[in-house]
């Protein structure tokens, strides 16, 4: 039977896990994402008294998960041709991957993973305003590359 602590932690997991999965899926192959997320959540359990009260635990655990994945971040994961998604600009994945690593990461965390700038800043270990700059400049470059206005 789960303890009160575990129940509280399960609620935490329910909230954070999907965001972590989405955030990491941009930079890690799918088979590695689950492992990294599980490791990060185990870390969060072991350090729950410190992690749970954090203002941005998702951002922090993103860094933990990256560490546990034992893979250095190298920008956005390449998008394979068979990953084609309906209603997506065909050139978008390639253009996103061609951005600077920080721009692509910031855009991914904010728009694909739904993190706030503060959360993304925690995840990237930079300020929220720097995240905003990366996102703004990156999105401008994407629009320019793809010739779209919106």
């Amino acid at each position, binding site marked *: 039977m789960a303890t009160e602590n575990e129940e509280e932690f399960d609620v935490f997991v329910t909230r954070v896990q999907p965001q972590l999965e*989405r955030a990491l899926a941009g930079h890690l192959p*799918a088979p590695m994402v689950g492992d990294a997320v*599980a*490791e990060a959540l185990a870390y969060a359990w072991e350090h729950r008294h410190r992690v749970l009260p954090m203002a941005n635990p998702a951002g922090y655990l993103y860094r933990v998960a990256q560490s546990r994945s034992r893979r*250095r971040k190298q920008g956005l994961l390449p998008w394979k041709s068979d990953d084609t998604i309906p209603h997506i600009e065909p050139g978008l994945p390639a253009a996103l991957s061609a951005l600077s690593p920080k721009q692509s990461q910031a855009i991914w965390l904010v728009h694909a993973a739904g993190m706030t700038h503060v959360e993304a800043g925690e995840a990237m270990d930079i300020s929220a305003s720097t995240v905003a700059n990366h996102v703004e400049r990156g999105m401008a470059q994407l629009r320019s590359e793809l010739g779209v206005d919106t």
Partner: protein
Amino acid sequence: MTLEEQIRRMGDARAAEVTTPSWRDRVGGGGRRWPVMVAAAALVAVLAGITVTLGPDDEKPGADVATEPETTRVTTTMTDATTSTVTTGPVTTTAGSAQQTGPCAVNPVPSDDVLDLAAHIAFDRTPLDLDQDGVDDEMLIYDDADGHWFLLARLHTGWTNALDIGTPPTPPGLAQTSDGVPAGTDLDGDGQLEFFVTGYLGPSARLVTLRGCELIDSFFVDEPAEGLGASFGVQIGFSDATPLCQGRACATRVSCAGGVLTQELLIGIAANDDAGGWGIGEIRLDRDGVITTTELPTRTVGPFTPLDDPPTEATTGVVDCTP
């Protein structure tokens, strides 16, 4: 559909491919490392049996000072920019134990032949007087051919102990002095040397102490390293606000808000960033084993430089010294 919405869909697509196992299976360093831990536990059991059979119980000088280190002088060192040691969870020692208080003389294994060390030593054997008895011992890093790495200390008496340090340090993760010698330093003045094993990413920085007959992780950074650039460093010293790294590649001063800070161990975590700058990301206080962390605004103090070319600008930090 806006670009933002399209990127959101890309996230949906990628996330749909993810299957996350239960975190409960990973608690306590479980999951991927259990075979290593089982093997290490088996080895501990074997060695414990040998110890019980053969081991004398003479007191080892300094073996009982572990709980109250005397931190009375400024002694510093710093890792150079290295490595990729990543280890998670509890550390397994493969020999020695808290119960063994003898002179570390009993341990017929592992020998080079048994471990096939010749093929796996990642760091030249280094003569060091580990137990401070006037006779050189040695310390090295090796792997067990299954991709698991160990820091091994071997005394001239034949006593050997190995500390599981996880995945490979590349290059070898022993902190080095400018002479290329692993930096064994008696940081706390207790007559035992402390060593660094460092790496980037994850649980990255470790302070390994040979204390009595044990190799102990005195400090274990089980958190993401500051920055994720090409290198990572640790600097360590004591808290009398003097430079932490005398004569080394750092120039850090720490002062104390609201009081005089003495006798505590300070550990500054520094890392270079992608642009080649580096700075102090946080400062930790180890007060009787309780680690408190003060994050500092990372301040670039110049390109990361090797030990023989220290930056000149000081990084300063103020630590809340309230117990």
